[in-house]
């Protein structure tokens, strides 16, 4: 049985490339599914049963157009099937208000997109490993 994928929700193509590069560098084995906005992410997560597994972890940018990361997070938490899904919020600033609201909305972790992605690779990778390898979440198929 293949590993559940990692869902990356990121509208900035360059950030997406950097993040995927970082994951590749730490040799993350999971597939990475990329959604470019909030609606796409919700469609992926809540599409009618098509046999695809729930992701191991959702890496979710806060600053998405239209439906924001926090909106997506709220939807994930209020839906029983996804309520326990690990979600890592990404933000490009360390604004207190963003963090606070992120945790309040039920984020499991919070990562600031650094200026240089060197350290970020390790951070995200360890997060990926934590949620995919160490932490057993009640995952399954939809």
């Amino acid at each position, binding site marked *: 049985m293949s590993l559940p994928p990692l869902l990356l929700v990121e509208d*900035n193509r*360059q*950030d997406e490339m*950097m993040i995927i*590069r970082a994951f590749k560098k730490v040799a993350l084995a999971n597939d990475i599914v990329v959604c470019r906005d909030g609606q796409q992410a919700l469609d992926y997560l809540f599409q009618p049963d098509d046999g695809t597994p729930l992701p191991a972890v959702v890496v979710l940018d806060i*600053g998405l157009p239209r439906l924001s990361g926090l909106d997506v997070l709220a939807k994930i938490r209020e839906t029983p099937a996804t309520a326990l899904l690990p979600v890592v919020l990404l933000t*490009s*600033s360390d*604004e207190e208000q963003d963090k606070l609201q992120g945790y309040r909305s039920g984020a499991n972790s919070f990562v600031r*997109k*650094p*200026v*240089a*992605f*060197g350290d970020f690779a390790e951070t995200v990778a360890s997060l990926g490993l934590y949620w995919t390898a160490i932490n057993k979440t009640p995952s399954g198929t939809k």
Partner: protein
Amino acid sequence: MSSDLPHGSSESWLPNPKDNDQSIFNTNLLEALYHRASDAYLLVDGDGIVRGANQSLLDLFGYRREEIDNFPLERLIPVPFRQKHADYVLDYFKRPALRSMGSGLALFGLSSDNQAIPLDISLEPVKTASSHLAIAHVRDRRNEMQQADQFKLAEMFRLLVEGVADHAIVLLDPEGRITTWNSGAERNKGYTADEIIGRNFSVFYTAEERDLGRPQAELAHARDQGSVSSEGWRIKKDGSPFWASVSLTALRDAGGELIGFAKITRDESERMEKERQIRELNTSLEHRVIERTRQLLNANNELESFAYAVSHDLRAPLRAILGFSRALEEDFADSLPEGARRFLEEIKEAGIRMSDLIDGILQLSRVTGEEHRAEPVDLSELAVRIADDLSKAWPDRAIVWTIEPGLACKGDRRLIELMLRNLFDNAVKYSAQRHPAEIEFFAEPAPEGLRFHVKDNGAGFDMAHSKLLFSPFQRLHRQDEFPGLGIGLATVQRVVRRHGGEIAGFGRLGQGADFSFTLSGGHREFRP
């Protein structure tokens, strides 16, 4: 009165007490006239001695008959007039003639109780067998003078009232009909005296108030209470209304009988208008303040969301620049020639500087925008801590810190620390060439309160550029001399201002800088 006397036949009717000649009283009637006349009579001889007086004269001067006979006439004359009078008597008897009353002399008598009495006197020479006498007809002018005074007073009062231009002063008869009209009334209400005298004062009221019986009610009130004051709309001759302040006073004669009313009206339209304007001005001022405050808040919010957007949106491309530079470096290091790697370094350096600038903008906007608290802050303790941090951050530098103990203020601890840290950072940075660098933090009293100083022995600056010190992104040194963003002092100034203080920088090239500032609530704490 003198004409009532039968002086034409004087020789036959005058008494002469000296000669004891009673023959001159040839009828009882004359005697009765002399003694009972309401006018006073006095007989004087050529030596100025009183030879007779009737009852009225005795009453007038306050003497008994036996006191006044053979009395020197001068005793009946006030002292200042005596000498002149003596000369006059001598003169008179040299050329005796009839002198009638009202000849223009202001004459005075002296009563037994030393009161001066204004008199009018007519003289008529009388010749008896043995002597020359003069009969003086003396008339008391006190009442007459009083009446004249009263008349004068009344006239002055009338002129005064007439001249009052900004008050309508009007007399009404007991029914409210107008009997007098002054210039103020004409000015206020537009009627001339001819047009209005005789008409009822109710014409000044609005039709509604007349229908309600308000004019009569006010008269009744004034009659009962003595006076009544009121304010209200009144109508001018041209029909235009004005805001009047009116007082109505009942006038009564000596017997208490109502003889009319005095009515004083002041046109307060101007005052009302001014008050209205002031109210309007205040209201519009209030609105403007509210509006400006709202605009300011909006601007502030916009600035904050701008700063927020800047921090997010500018960082994304920056991340890409720095991230891909690094990726390039890492993934293709082997195939990159030396020159390309150096260019990559420059790209990364510029990117990091831009990132710092963005942080600076954010910091500045936070200082200006955020709510801040007022808590006691121990400045000296804070200074020691920051100095410690900086000494550790520059282990190779020799820095001598001199920090005055016991300095404190009230403010937002986080912002105050940010300010102090910026100033100390600068002091350390610009004293890099000194061994040792000397940095002082102390306070001294100033008229506006305690003035804090952060002073160093570093590179200083040219005072000619001092006004650029606190402008954001302005720098007085080249990047390769002292690197920096030009945000630090701008931030410091904003923090100081937010704490009700102001800051000044003093420096000389090569001789160090001294930044001094005040803070509301800045003080020295005296510890036992």
